[in-house]
């Protein structure tokens, strides 16, 4: 079951196309990574999902119906560039935003007190925001985003500006929210965090969706038949012998008494034949399947689509 589907959405600004026929489906209860270089159109897409701007064409379906202005109560959005009213007290401000999302004042107050207990920040309640450090303000922003227990959470670069301790805390909270049934869209260009927590991903480049799917599937599709072999001696002797069974091979410069060779097997070739030849002609010390990182996939896919 998909909580959110985006169907053929396009958005044009004067002089440039921000989104060009983008479609994607976010399964309920998943963490969905929205990747893309700067200026690819991620923020525009997020604004459309948040009903801040309207698409020129295409539609957004949330929880089985077309998105309306009232649905913002179902969504929690933490923008990349975010701030708070500096002169306002923390507690008063959190109550204000919670009420904007449709919570009653007393309910908001009750839930806020729970969150403040969890983060152990009860003494911040009557402080003005300008007295808080950046990291403290970010915690408040996070609480404001999730307080009304939205079904759909959208985090735009949530970890930027967080110190490692708070980033870890935030990551745990995001995973906990997912486990409690929330669906999370996660926009970032921090690839390692995608690998750590995302179940699905979409890669947007130049206003188009160029790659979508389960993170594990995407990685597997880019891994096919690529292996790293490590030798104690010079493996160039075997290069000729394996030529019929590989599409290409690369020998890296010798390092710490080892030489690494990367090969991509032909689809019909067998891994054990490769090992046999390598073992016979050189001093083979190790072999691993090389799974590309999302970072490599990102660069590769973006470069391919830019050509």
């Amino acid at each position, binding site marked *: 079951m998909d909580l959110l589907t985006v169907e053929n959405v396009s958005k044009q600004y004067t002089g440039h196309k921000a989104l060009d026929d983008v479609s994607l489906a976010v399964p309920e209860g998943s963490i969905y990574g929205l990747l893309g270089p700067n200026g690819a159109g991620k923020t525009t897409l997020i*604004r459309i999902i948040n009903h801040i701007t309207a698409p020129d064409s295409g539609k957004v379906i949330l929880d089985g119906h077309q998105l309306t202005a009232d649905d913002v109560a179902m*969504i929690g*959005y933490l923008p990349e560039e975010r*701030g708070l*009213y500096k002169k*306002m007290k923390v507690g008063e401000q959190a109550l*204000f*935003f919670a009420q904007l999302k449709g919570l009653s004042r007393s309910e908001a107050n009750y839930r806020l007190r729970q969150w403040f207990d969890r983060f152990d920040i009860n003494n911040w309640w009557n402080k003005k925001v300008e007295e808080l450090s950046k990291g403290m303000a970010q915690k408040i922003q996070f609480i404001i985003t999730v307080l009304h227990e939205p079904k759909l959470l959208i985090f735009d670069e949530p970890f930027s500006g967080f110190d490692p301790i708070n980033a870890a805390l935030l990551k745990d909270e995001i995973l906990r929210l997912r486990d409690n049934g929330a669906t999370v869209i996660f926009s970032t260009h921090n690839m390692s965090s995608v690998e750590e927590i995302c179940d699905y991903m979409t890669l947007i480049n130049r206003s188009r969706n160029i790659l979508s799917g389960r993170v594990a599937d995407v990685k597997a599709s880019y891994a096919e038949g690529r292996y790293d072999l490590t030798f104690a001696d010079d493996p160039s002797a075997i290069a000729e012998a394996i030529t019929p069974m590989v599409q290409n091979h690369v020998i890296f410069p010798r390092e710490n008494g080892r030489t690494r060779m990367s090969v991509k097997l032909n689809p019909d070739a067998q891994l054990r034949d490769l090992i046999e030849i390598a073992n016979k002609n050189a001093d083979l010390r190790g072999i691993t399947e090389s799974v590309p990182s999302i970072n490599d996939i990102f660069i590769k896919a973006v470069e391919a689509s830019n050509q």
Partner: protein
Amino acid sequence: MASKIGLVIRREYMERVSKKSFIITTILMPIVMVALMLAPALIMMMSTTDTKTIAVIDDSGAIAQYLEGNEEVHFITPDQPRDSVMADDSLFGVLVIERGILTGNSAAKLYTNAAGSISIESNIKSQIENIIETEKLKAYNIENLDQILDDVRTPITLQTFRNEQGKDESSSSSSAISYAIGVAMTFLLYMFLLLYGQMVMTSIIEEKNNRVLEIVVSSVRPQQLMMGKIIGIGLVAVTQILIWVILMTVISSIVLPALVPADMMSQASAFNAGTIDASTLNADPDLLHAISIFGNVGYILEIFGYLLLFLIGGFLFYSSIYAAIGSAVDNIQDAGQLQSVVVFPIIIGLIFAMTAASDPNSTMALVLSLVPFTSPMVMMVRIPFGIPSWEIITSLVLLYISFIFMVWIAAKIYRVGIFMYGKKPTVRELIRWASYK
């Protein structure tokens, strides 16, 4: 949806009303205003403490003995020779009256050792004129001259009344007082439009600058946010005025009767009703008139009622332009040039209001008090003079229609502007944004 606007209004309002600066300005402003009004009188009182001495050298021999000193100046006729009198710099000055003064063939000359004073000069001039007049009359050898002169010189009081048909009594009016009230109200309006309009703009720029906007618009539509902000800040202005109205009402109905002597109060009300006997009048009519106006709670409420109506209309009109400008720029420096779109017409309105104050019934005054850009200021200055109510109603209707239009346009610009960062837009670009779907 409506409750979201309500929340925004509440936030904007509370943030400002609970500030110390709001409370302080609300209290200080009337004090400063009263002080400004009293300052000239106080300065006069202080400056009259030292009496200036003027030596008179009277070659005609007809003037010097009749010159009368007052607390500001006194005259002496020195015995020393002319040159030493002229050289004496302990004197304020030397007045030389030449021989032919009675026949008008020569002039009186005042040599001063310090900066001259308009009041002294006019005092000397009128005294000499009076003395010459009396001298010449005496030359006709009329019998009982003094008695005749006393009889001829009767002080009169000019009272003006509004001739209103359908009312039993005509109400007293005074152009000087109307002028003062009109100008004061217009200045107040001008100040509020600029001050509170700019507050809307600054607040929008601030929101955009520290990116709290990004969080707010995920819950509230941009148009709702803009309207909430304008209404919230507008209510702060209204609150401030209402506090002053209450203060004035209290002063008018409790403090004024306690301060002003009872016979003056009764004279003031008799004066206002037009039943006063001029011969018993022993106070300045303008002062009586002022007392009767400040003592008239109904009149105060009426004038401030109009002020509020024009303030609300004018504020919504101008602050929506301010909002559009605020949404389009990243910082206040960039707003400078665009702001002239608002500041210019407001100042023009103020300048024409000053002209209209001296001739409230001119065609120009009428037209400008109907055109929305200038109408709040120009109409406000005319109202105390008592103008037909259809003019006021037409002006208000036009103002309110155009503010709805202006808010609509501003909301369109705002919606686009708040997501534009970096480039400083031109007025032309703002207008193009308004046409976006």
